[in-house]
């Protein structure tokens, strides 16, 4: 067994302190230890974006990030995006525009879309395409995803 170390970080707005093996990836910590299975494994090599989460306001592939590196940081996952009462506007837009088919890539896609919308005011469709290039989807052809992103951008304008 690999050695363990204690980390303290904020997960979806709440402080958390726990011991993790130094070789553990953030993706595995979320899925296997914390039961947060909304973040998906689809390649484990940072090539598909299905495991996208936000760390200190920036999106990362959680399959590439060691859990020990969460120490002192703020982690936002797909489960933390919504309030207990309502879907986040980006989530709602994905539902309303038919962007969800099998849905497996959608938590990562939504995390990335939300990041782009928050950090690029007036995000254009072309910019959104570039920004979502690292998120693979096999069902939708991305069109309805981009429709959803555009609708959120417009509602903010």
């Amino acid at each position, binding site marked *: 067994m690999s050695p363990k170390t204690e980390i303290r970080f904020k997960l979806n707005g709440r402080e958390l302190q726990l011991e993790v093996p130094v070789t553990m990836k953030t993706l595995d910590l979320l899925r296997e230890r914390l039961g*947060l299975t909304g973040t998906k494994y689809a390649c484990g090599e940072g090539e598909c974006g299905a495991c996208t989460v936000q760390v200190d306001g920036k999106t990362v592939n959680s399959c590439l990030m060691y859990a020990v590196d969460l120490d002192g940081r703020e982690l936002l996952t797909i489960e933390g995006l919504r309030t207990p009462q309502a879907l986040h506007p980006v989530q709602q837009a994905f539902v309303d525009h038919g962007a969800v088919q*099998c849905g497996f890539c959608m938590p990562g896609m939504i995390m990335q879309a939300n990041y782009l919308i928050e950090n690029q005011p007036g995000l254009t469709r072309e910019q959104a395409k570039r920004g979502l290039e690292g998120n693979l989807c096999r069902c939708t052809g991305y069109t309805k995803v981009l429709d959803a992103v555009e609708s959120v951008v417009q509602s903010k304008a």
Partner: protein
Amino acid sequence: MDPTASSNPSSNPSSKARADAAPSLIGQRVKKPDAPDKATGKTRYINDMVLPQMLIGKVLFAGRPHARIVRIDTTAARALPGVHAVLTGADAAGLKFGFVRDNVALKDRVRCEHDEVAAVAAESEDIAARALALIEVEYEDLPGVFTPEAGARDDAPQIHDNFPGNRSLRFEFKHGDLAAAEAGSDFIVDNVFRPHHVTHCCMGTSCAIADFDHNGKLTIWTQTQYPYNYKMDLAPALGIGPGDIRVIQPPVGGAFGSKLDVYPYEPIAALLAKKTGRPVKVLYTRGEEFKASPTRQAAIIHMRTGCTREGTLTFRSADVLLDNGAYTSWGPTIPVIMMRTTSGHYRVPVVDFKAQAIYTNNPYAGSFRGYGNVQTTWATAQQMDMLADLIGMEPLDFHLKNAQLSGEVTPQKSYLRECALVECLQTAAAASDYSRKRRAYAAARTQPGRFKKGIGLASSIHNAGGAKIHKSDGIGTILKVDDYARVTVITGASEIGQGIDAVITLIVAEELGVPTEHVTLVNNDSDIAPWDVGVHASRTTFIAGNGARRAALKAKAQILAGAEKLLGEPAAGLALRGGAVVRAQDGKEIIKLERLLRQMHFQAEPELVMVTDYYEPKSEPEGASHVSDHSAAYAHAVHVAEITVDTLTGEIKVDKVTVAQDVGRVINRMGLEGQIEGGLAIGLGYALSEDMRIEEGRLKNACFRDYKLITAPEMPPVEMHFIESMCAEGPYGAKGISELPTIVIAPAVANALANATGVRIFDPPMSPEKVARAIFEQGLPGASQPEAAARESATV
């Protein structure tokens, strides 16, 4: 123009009959009921499932294409703490399964790189992986067969003892006098097309969880898209009866045909579960997924098509050689559809089709969206374009001249009752300004400049009402309405992301006048839901939609009869709308539906509203002769692709796609658009970038970095035109829709490439490397060579 407008939305007969009625849901945009939970990460996919006491199963793959196993020693693996079972070929001996019973879950001889030679069940994935590393296997490598041509040679190594000459399946269909038709042809095109290996790349990797109870019954949680025949196919791999299997289908991360057969990891999970007495989960990594999941069938198609000087097709012949791979799944059965396209794509009076599958030591193919037709249309649609140029005829005129009309019957007896090919051709061509642009781009080919524009049109025909390749193509539906007017539909129809959940809730809500949110689907447990043949053949909206509608109409009749009995209002004058029983004439509410349902229930002669239905489409079994009306409907689609080719790098950018598709009738507009856009993306990957690099049986690019899917920036805008041919047998007139988008796009791009550059690629994908090389070797007619183009671009 509204890019997603239906061609004739006013021709909706039921809306005329319901002039009184509330707005119909048919053709509206209905959200997928499961979308909110999927968008919030709440949905628990099979990949996410954990059961109490569950062990993790892991598979040892041979990693070599052809070998004898001299010795296998699992002693050290068994001794590792946390290991509960280690299985080898000896544990699956004699448990043959598969289409021709040529496969076993665990092998005692290696026939392809991903052959499963051992499996472990352990407390964790980590322990299971370490146990695999402790298994000692001594192999004696054997000479391999890596192309079907090599496999067909007399001196080729034999892959299966009981398939002499490596001969797998063979298909033939002949119609008319080929020699006479050839003699009567003024023009003949003759090409060899080589559709390649690609794979499904479901975002959720393959996964199965198996558990036996103490009565010997197996429960398997699986991604299967055909739960009922799945039992029949899985049972022999385990030596149990199909009746002793319960299939549960949790949400899946895509399927696209890849889960239309049993693959070894599923019986492996079950064998490990049986051995350990505990639930066992097998979940592939992405690397394992690339290597061990099925491919699209690769083929070598020698196709010839003839026509007269006036542009009338005279014959089409296809001689097809299929790389069977090491085992026979659905891949080598694609000639069943290939021959329908060969004989039915336009009016072809004389047909000669033959196909032979040859075993090789390559990965083996399953079914994949567009099954057989992706490969065939790649050939037929390019030859149509080539013939038009040979004759010197406008391609659109050539297509129209040979397009079938409603009521025509193909040589294989596909009865095209409602045929909208002409309307699809005219709509797509007009909307894209196809003919004018094609002439202009061809003329511009000789102009200087690095970037060339091209436009290409392709069409195809596909079954759109199932395909009766089994004894039945039917579906069972059970529908109940509770005391609160909440409806539960228990249906055999599987949801794999395609959106049958939205279609069924829409249809049932339409008939029973309740909100779609009040309709719940139960469709994921073979012990509960009745039989269905599975999600394939563009059949589910058609078949399951009909089943749901028929069940809803039975419930409606019972409810209105109840209203007549209790309220004295003649049932014939009543309707269900807005959660109430209303007078059909003026919509006046008579009684709330839930109140009526309770009155019907709690009375002297109590009754519950619960109905059953079994729907079998009016199609004929495929049969050995392949002459039968095997689908309840057929449909066409036409794609026009507009592209820009970088003649220096060979890169193709698809600027726009115009789609005109006969959908019968739009049911859920949002789902329909999504299926077309998504199907197109798979077809574009096939056309441009996806390519399994298999060298001597070994896959060299088992990751997304090296196996290139279409990403958001590469997806072109798609303009869609839905042609509503109003299929008499389909639900509300609908036809199946989901495969044509994947089938038609690749040859449309190929025809655009030819228009832009004069270059034709016969072996997809049309990668930059291939396109650049072809341009370099053939040169652009009249255009500058790439070196010159490079100099030009520097000055642009």
